[in-house]
């Protein structure tokens, strides 16, 4: 600010000196002198004002402008840091999203694998259970068939024994009625021959 003021005032002073020099050189120089006189421009006053303004400018620069600039620089650095942090955060967020996506994908794959394994296991279990049930059923059928065969054989044996008993009883009754004494006598003689030759 002070430099700006100096830059603004310095051309004015040079312009004044050029005007004095030009007064000696030109005839219109009296016009400038007249103007300075009319407006009451005093070099000492101007110098004092310039000195006072310089002090004011220094004081303003030290106690107002410099802290303000420092604060602005600090805020700018904070903003830059914030932007940098925001970019990093965005990058981390993007990375996190990628990781989350990868995790979700992996979880989906794991879930699919678990489901596939569970289906396979269920299928194998069902097959084993089916095989075991079939084996049990076959065993039951075999046992039942054996039992039926045994029962059938037992029934046949019982029927055979009963039939034989009936045949023998009937034959015994028939023979006891139908055999004549002559036939019995002949049979007795034959039996005697058989027994005496033993």
């Amino acid at each position, binding site marked *: 600010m002070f430099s700006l003021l100096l830059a603004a005032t310095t051309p004015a002073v040079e312009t004044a000196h050029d005007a004095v020099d030009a007064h000696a050189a030109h005839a219109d120089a009296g016009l400038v002198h007249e103007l300075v006189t009319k407006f009451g421009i005093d070099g000492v006053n101007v110098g004092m004002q310039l000195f006072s303004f310089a002090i004011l400018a220094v004081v303003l620069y030290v106690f107002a402008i410099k802290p303000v600039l420092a604060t602005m620089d600090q805020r700018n650095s904070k903003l830059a840091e914030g932007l940098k942090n925001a970019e990093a955060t965005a990058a981390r967020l993007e990375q996190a999203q990628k990781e989350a996506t990868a995790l979700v994908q992996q979880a989906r794959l794991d879930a699919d694998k678990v489901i596939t394994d569970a289906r396979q296991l269920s299928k194998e279990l069902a097959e084993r259970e089916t095989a075991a049930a079939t084996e049990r059923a076959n065993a039951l059928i075999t046992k039942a068939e054996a039992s039926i065969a045994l029962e059938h054989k037992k029934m046949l044996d019982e029927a*055979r*024994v009963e*039939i*034989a*008993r009936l045949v*023998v009883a009937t*034959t*015994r009754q028939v*023979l*006891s009625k139908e*055999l004549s*004494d002559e*036939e*019995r*006598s002949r*049979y*007795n*003689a*034959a*039996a*005697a*021959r*058989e*027994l*005496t*030759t*033993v």
Partner: protein
Amino acid sequence: MRGNKQTQQLAKQLFALSLDNGVLSSERVAGVLAYVEKHAPAKSIAVLQAYQRLIAREVARGQAIVEHAGPIDGNVLKSIEGAMSQRYHRPVAASAKASPELLAGLRIRVGDDVFETSVSAQLDALASAV
């Protein structure tokens, strides 16, 4: 127990005295009984019971009971007596006994031995075989 053993031994001795050349003699049996009646040994009833069992067994060994169904000829009995005497090497007398349940045929008992050829036995064998 000791008395029972002595009774058996005395009965066997009396039975041995009742044999004449290995054959049971009625005279000797009568003499043994007279001796027992006269002297009355200890436990004479038990001795006589054991002696009776021995005599009965010996009598049975010398007797062939021929069970038959239907008529039987006397020659058949004689042939049986001869065959059994030859088989047991002692005289065996045959006696007939009607047994209609045989239907036809003979059953001969000599002591504990049984010989049988009859329709009833064959039917029983048939029933057992089936």
